[in-house]
């Protein structure tokens, strides 16, 4: 398995962390992390991707929708999607799909 392929598999296994509370406000996703009371506010691109994640879309599907929505090339959208997913996972806003127990949308 190549490095890129591994990254794709990893990204597709990520979903919003069920321990978080989040809500869409004025088009942006606002997330509260109850553990440490930290508040995150996602930018438009990240908010778009977050909503797609909750609809169980794959990384490829999300990138395609991102390309359509923001009028960028599919390659650029895919790279941005992967980068954002890794960034959100690094902040523990996403977790592996098999650890997710339920929806957190309020």
């Amino acid at each position, binding site marked *: 398995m190549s490095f890129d392929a591994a990254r794709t598999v990893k990204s597709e296994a990520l979903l919003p962390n*069920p*321990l*978080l*509370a*989040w*809500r869409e*406000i*004025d088009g*942006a996703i*606002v997330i*509260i992390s*109850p*553990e440490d*009371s930290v*508040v995150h*506010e996602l930018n438009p691109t990240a908010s778009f991707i977050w909503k797609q994640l909750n609809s169980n879309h794959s990384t490829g599907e999300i990138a395609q929708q991102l390309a359509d929505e923001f009028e960028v090339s599919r390659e650029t959208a895919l790279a941005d999607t992967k980068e954002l997913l890794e960034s959100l996972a690094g902040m523990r806003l996403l977790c592996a799909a098999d650890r997710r127990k339920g929806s*957190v949308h*309020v």
Partner: protein
Amino acid sequence: METIERSALSRKDAPPRRELAIEIGQIPLHLKFADSAHLEKASARYRVFSGSREKGLPIWVDSRQNPQSKDSTFSYTLNSATVDLRKDGAQFSGVPHEYSLDSLIRILLSKMLLTRSGFLLHAATVMRDGQAHIFTGQSGAGKSTVASLSPIGSVLTDEISLLRNLDNSWQAFGTPFWGEFHAGDLNERAPIAGIYSLIQAKEDRVERLSTRDALRAILPNILFFSSKQEDNAQLLTILTQALQAIPVYQLYFQRHAEFWEVLK
């Protein structure tokens, strides 16, 4: 005659009732003290917030430590004192003094308000023309200054405000929670005209905030202690509803009472 004397004796021998019924933000609480010293101080502090014994959530207050209940739905420890909320009531244990009791009541209310469409906010609330104006900010932002510049009898609190949605109307309530541990003496409520996030400046002006900017401005000033996901989700829902209904402003103000001019 004999019956009356016996009855009087049995009353004399019975342990005194160390109970106090209070009501804050229309939430009745029935405090039951193990220590009479606690009762005396609490009775003085919450004298204008008296409520009904029958309706109030029973709260057992003890200076000793007690084990957490198995049926606990919410628990929080502040220093050595603990709030333990169950379905049938609450236990405050390890309560050394009235300051601790006051803190535990605030912690308990922050949880109880989740099911009552309300929340606690670090803010001064001032009534003017029958409406409540809420001035929020962290320590040093100017809450006490705003309160001190307002007429006596118009300040519902200078430190912690209680906001609730009652019958589709957001209301601010007087609270006993004041800075410097003053006891609040205005148990009234009023419909909320606006929330103002304070910034001290060299001019007086206001800027209306979007719902998202309003949330960003007030979230750091919310009193909230639960780490449960569902509680935080509920809080976020209540705050969003509140901020969509109540106008929120950034208030740049000088330390003088003329700032009211820009709120008209």
